[in-house]
């Protein structure tokens, strides 16, 4: 069948009529959209491109379909295996395999945590922040949403409800009263379930395994995704974690946990390894520490906008040294770690 076809194809199979030009364009869109924090303009242009012709749309559908195969391998471990196999192809033996492992061992929790879900799912989210970036978004009803580092949300306001989808990261929501005669409920959706706001100021953080909610004003109701899972009402000053099936017992929420909205990370007697895991969310390079000092306690306020400065201050307080680990790759820091000071030889 010819390549220039009427829009209602479908029955002919999606592949029969993708033109080489459409294929090349689709690939360029695919690559552009994967850049961190693509401009909203880009996304609009991309949607317009898709809508402009059925051939464009078919080409894009192909990318999404094949993309699902790629998703099956999207993990640092799979990547390490694939790269190790390539190392065999390049006949360079073990060294390369070990290099691939560097990505696995030190990349975990860094870029990976951000991209754990479908890469373009985040790329095309309504609002998003890059690593180390923060942003305040005011929604049509006056609701204020602050996005922390490496976060993305979709806004789905409809006739029956006001829904935010937290794709990745952390947000602080200050809801506004809905001006409509019949006020619509306000919901935040995470991978594990929904959080229903009852006139309120609260944070939601999407983790790898669970989601965490802390309430500072008013109350929220947590509804895990699984049918029949119990609902929990959380009041001001409380926080809880939830999975798809259950909600943890409420604990008291620390006001300090919202310090990120001012570009600070506030710690109160926090273990050094936990602290670095938190600070690492704001860093393009993974952070780690020598196991010998992991138990040291950290207290104080550290800037998240300038991770190097925070590390400097931290190492001074604890009497540690900052090391940039570049082995395996040579060119780029694979991680920054805090370690006991080495005595001069």
């Amino acid at each position, binding site marked *: 069948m010819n390549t220039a076809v009427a829009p209602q194809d479908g029955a002919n199979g999606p*592949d029969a009529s*993708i*033109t*080489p030009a459409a*294929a*090349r364009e*689709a*690939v*360029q869109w*695919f*690559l552009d959209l*994967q*850049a*961190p924090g693509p401009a909203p303009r880009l996304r609009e242009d991309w949607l317009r491109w898709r809508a402009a012709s059925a051939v464009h749309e078919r*080409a894009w559908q*192909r*990318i999404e379909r*094949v993309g699902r*195969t*790629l998703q*099956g*391998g*999207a*993990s*640092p*471990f*799979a*990547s*390490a*295996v*694939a*790269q*190790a*196999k*390539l*190392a*065999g*192809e*390049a006949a360079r033996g*073990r060294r390369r*395999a*070990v290099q*691939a*492992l560097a*990505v*696995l*061992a030190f*990349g975990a929790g860094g*870029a*990976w945590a*951000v*991209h*754990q879900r479908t*890469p373009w799912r985040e790329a095309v989210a309504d609002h998003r922040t890059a690593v180390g970036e923060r942003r305040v978004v005011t929604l049509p009803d006056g609701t204020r949403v602050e996005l922390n580092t490496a976060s993305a949300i979709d806004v789905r306001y409809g006739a029956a409800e006001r829904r935010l989808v937290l794709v990745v990261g952390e947000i602080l929501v200050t809801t506004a009263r809905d001006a409509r005669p019949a006020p619509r409920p306000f919901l935040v959706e995470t991978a594990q379930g929904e959080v229903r706001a009852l006139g309120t100021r609260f944070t939601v953080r999407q983790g790898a395994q669970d989601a965490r909610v802390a309430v500072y004003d008013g109350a929220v109701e947590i509804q895990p995704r699984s049918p029949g899972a119990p609902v929990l009402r959380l009041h001001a000053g409380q926080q809880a974690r939830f999975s798809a099936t259950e909600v943890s017992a409420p604990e008291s929420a620390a006001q300090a946990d919202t310090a990120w909205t001012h570009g600070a990370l506030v710690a109160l007697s926090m273990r050094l390894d936990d602290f670095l895991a938190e600070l690492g969310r704001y860093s393009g390079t993974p952070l780690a520490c020598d196991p010998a000092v992991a138990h040291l306690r950290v207290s104080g306020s550290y800037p998240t906008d300038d991770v190097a400065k925070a590390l400097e201050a931290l190492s001074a307080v604890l009497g540690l040294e900052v090391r940039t680990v570049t082995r395996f*790759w040579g*060119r*780029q820091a694979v991680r920054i770690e805090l370690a006991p000071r080495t005595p001069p030889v």
Partner: protein
Amino acid sequence: MPTTDTTLRQQCIEGLYADHHGWLKAWLRRRLGDSFAAADLAHDTFLRLLGRTEALAVEEPRAFLTTVATRVLANHWRREQLERAYLETLRHLPQALAPSPEERALLLEALCEIDALLDGLPVPAKRAFLFSQLDGLTQVQIAERLGVTERTVRRYLTQAAETCFFADVLGRARA
């Protein structure tokens, strides 16, 4: 003439099997150096013929069987290399993080498919694409990691994505 009629097809395959199965096994054994594996792959080759709707070229039966068997062989090597890479990678991983047997099967399956999609590309283009799709690295990060310019990374990714998504449309040859 290529034929797709089911009954005729069955007969064709039976004919091929009767006349050339022994020859195919010997051909595979020369490449594999292992008669058990050769028997398995000869079996796989005929299974592939039965399962597919692709045309049967029976005028040159041995040339045709060789073409199909070459594909089966490529898949076999691909899987073997991935298994090896998998075990090698696993040895460096803390026990707690080791994938379960089910995960292992799924993962190898996915990796096999991805590997086949990228077949024929130069190694740096493959690496760039894996970094971008499996690790979620940005083009800037890949440039740093591979020690090349961003322009080069973009070229690699374009090449890889065009092959991966549109090999047929753009006439990219896959082995």
